[in-house]
């Protein structure tokens, strides 16, 4: 009995999709409204002048903070969309950056180079990104496991090469392509309007969470959950795993493209960073950091990751770090060092991701004499 290496990537530490499980908690009655409440709170954040020194550079309603939050929200949505693939269907793609980049560059090129109005550009881009995902998915899904990861990686690499080559002068190569804002609605332009970008990002996040939630709770979502647990079994039940995986892949790609369009507006342009395989790897990290297959885990993971990614540069150059002895301050002033170390620690200390934190803390909390109602 030769041990045969399975090409199947082990499913991520499966978490139960909330949508298909019964609620146990006494919150049960209120739970459906919790997301809505969260959305409302997030929507009125820009009206608060609350200052959180150390957490943000300025008060909550300052453009810098809103911009940072907007980026975090987009990545929260992006991670949630990627989780539709990874956490909910069990497909490990290393090429998700491609569809995000297609969204960013597509919008940017159509607006800046072709001079289309924003809504047309965004619509075309999202459609195009979705079709691209469908086509490439149709090919890549002929393989499974590590091979699938590698084929998707290869496709994304082609995208990165095309962008870097400045093909036809469209992408701006390594310099990127600033977005031409002259044709944009004025409400999206200028620092004073950062808040609108924030709301846009929030809307995107809400959309993704809603779509993912809706799809997970749909008959198709049931099949996707089944695919994650046991693909063979789904086939034997009379459903074509390929079709369903393709749907998940396409949908997830389309959501990423939409995220790209939003991101393009927030950052005001496109740069080749976002085509790299590192972006996909960070999506993976976000999802695992947050908790794959859970509704809020990937969102939190994405937000936290981007927050750290942006804020660690400030941490690295802060006085607190600079005053440390050199052997500490040098590495700590490298944001990537801190980020990398955080992952490693997270893998060891939060195996189920942030989403599992609640259940892990639960015994602790209930052991304390409860003061909360």
């Amino acid at each position, binding site marked *: 009995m030769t041990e045969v290496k399975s090409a199947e990537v082990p499913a991520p530490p499966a978490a139960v999709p909330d949508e298909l499980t019964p609620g146990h908690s006494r919150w049960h009655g209120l739970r459906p409204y919790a997301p809505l409440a969260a959305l409302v709170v997030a929507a009125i954040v*820009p*009206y*608060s*002048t*609350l*200052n959180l020194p150390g957490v943000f*550079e*300025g*008060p909550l*309603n*300052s*453009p*810098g*903070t*809103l*911009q*940072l939050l907007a*980026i975090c929200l987009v990545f929260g949505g992006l991670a949630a969309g990627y989780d539709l693939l990874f956490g909910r269907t069990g497909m490990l793609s290393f090429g998700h950056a491609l569809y995000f980049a297609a969204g960013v560059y597509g919008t940017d090129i159509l607006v800046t180079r072709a001079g289309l109005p924003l809504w047309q550009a965004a619509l075309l881009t999202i459609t195009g990104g979705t079709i691209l995902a469908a086509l490439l998915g149709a090919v890549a899904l002929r393989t499974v496991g590590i091979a699938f990861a590698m084929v998707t990686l290869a496709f994304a690499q082609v995208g990165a*090469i095309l962008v*870097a*080559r*400045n093909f036809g*002068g469209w992408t*701006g*190569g*390594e*310099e*990127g*392509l*600033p*977005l*031409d*804002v*002259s044709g944009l609605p004025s409400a999206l*332009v*200028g*620092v*004073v*309007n*950062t*808040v609108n970008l*924030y709301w846009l990002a929030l809307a995107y996040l809400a959309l993704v969470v809603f779509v993912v939630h809706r799809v997970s709770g749909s008959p198709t979502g049931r099949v996707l959950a089944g695919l994650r647990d046991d693909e063979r079994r789904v086939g034997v039940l009379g459903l074509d795993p390929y079709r369903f995986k393709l749907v998940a892949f396409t949908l997830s790609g389309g959501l990423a493209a939409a995220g790209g369009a939003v991101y393009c507006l927030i*950052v*005001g*342009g496109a*740069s*080749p*960073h976002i085509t790299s395989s590192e972006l996909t790897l960070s999506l993976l990290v976000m999802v695992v950091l947050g908790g794959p297959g859970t509704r809020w885990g990937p969102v939190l993971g994405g937000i936290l990751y981007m927050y750290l990614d*942006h804020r660690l*540069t*400030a941490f*690295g*150059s802060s006085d607190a770090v600079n005053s440390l002895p050199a052997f500490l301050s040098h590495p700590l*002033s*490298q*944001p*990537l060092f801190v980020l990398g170390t955080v992952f490693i620690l997270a893998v060891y200390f939060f195996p189920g991701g942030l989403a599992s934190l609640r259940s892990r803390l639960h015994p602790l909390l209930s052991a304390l004499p409860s003061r909360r109602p």
Partner: protein
Amino acid sequence: ATACGSPQETASGGGDAAPVKVGLVYSQSGPLASYGKQYIEGFKAGLDYATKGTGKVGDRKIELTEVDDAGDPAKAVSAAKDLIGKGTKIIAGSTASGVALQVAPIAAQNKVLFISGPAATDAVTGANKYTFRSGRQSYQDVVTAKSFIGDAAGKKVVVFAQDGAFGDANEAAVKAVIGGAGATVSSVRAPASATEFTPFASQIKAAKPDLLFVAWAGTTAPAMWQTLDQQGVLASTTVVTGLDIRASWPTFGAAGSKISFLSHYFDGASDTEAAKALKAKVGTVDLFHPDGFAAAQMVVRAAQEGGDDVDKMVKALEGWQFDSVKGQMSIRAEDHALLQPMYQAKLAGSGTEFTATAQKTLTGDETAPPVTQMKG
């Protein structure tokens, strides 16, 4: 202290004695960290020089906020928005071209002054009314390169550049400058990620150019030079390229002495007052110190003449001529190109000890890029 406020209010700078807020967004970490380091050293020396050591313009102190963009445009944009939101009217920095190009529109949208740093892309020139540059641009490199072949008519020129915008810009500039002077220009392009250059060297050699213009940045440069040398390209024609920071000099190795360098700056290229002041501060001057230095001079000028009114600042800078590290600089009013001297240089030495010597200095007018249409 929770309070409510409008999401669209931004702090206003102001008051006569309030400090002048200047935001510096540049690479403190990431691949261009050492360019950024030179820039900031140069900036501080320049600020000292321009304010005569007071750090003040009139009664107003110049308050610097430094932010690391790690070479990532997204981070730079966030930082710029944050600074603008806090009432900063002057932003400078931009080590990478990609960052400069994305911050420039932000400056225009919000009507703040932006002075781009070492980023060499031509696209910053004429980007918009609020954007200036304190460094040189690719086009000036190419004009300097042209000076190596004298009369270009009938000559055969090959551009060897990496794929991407940097390569495109250089190729276009060579076609315009040298091709425009009557030379036939062709190009050999290679992926920026290439690690093996023999095919490209063979193609160049087969083209038998009179002048080879190389535009290559990045860590693979030494391998590229070595291959060109080994395949006999350097020996068979005049090869011109830009001289990078000192740390890279030893990596040219034996090829170094066979190349004609155009140079933006190197220690000892000029002997101006400003250069002495800079050298006194930083020791050995390097490629991007002058950019920071000039940026500081421009900032002081803008604050002096413009107060808190950005439009006045722009007016004050447009057409301004000043003496900086490289000699006389002038800011062309039409497109904010920074006309400045450029140098021809030779590299000599071995091991880790290399010295550059200036062969010729081209004046700001000689290397002036054509006027571009101001875009916004």
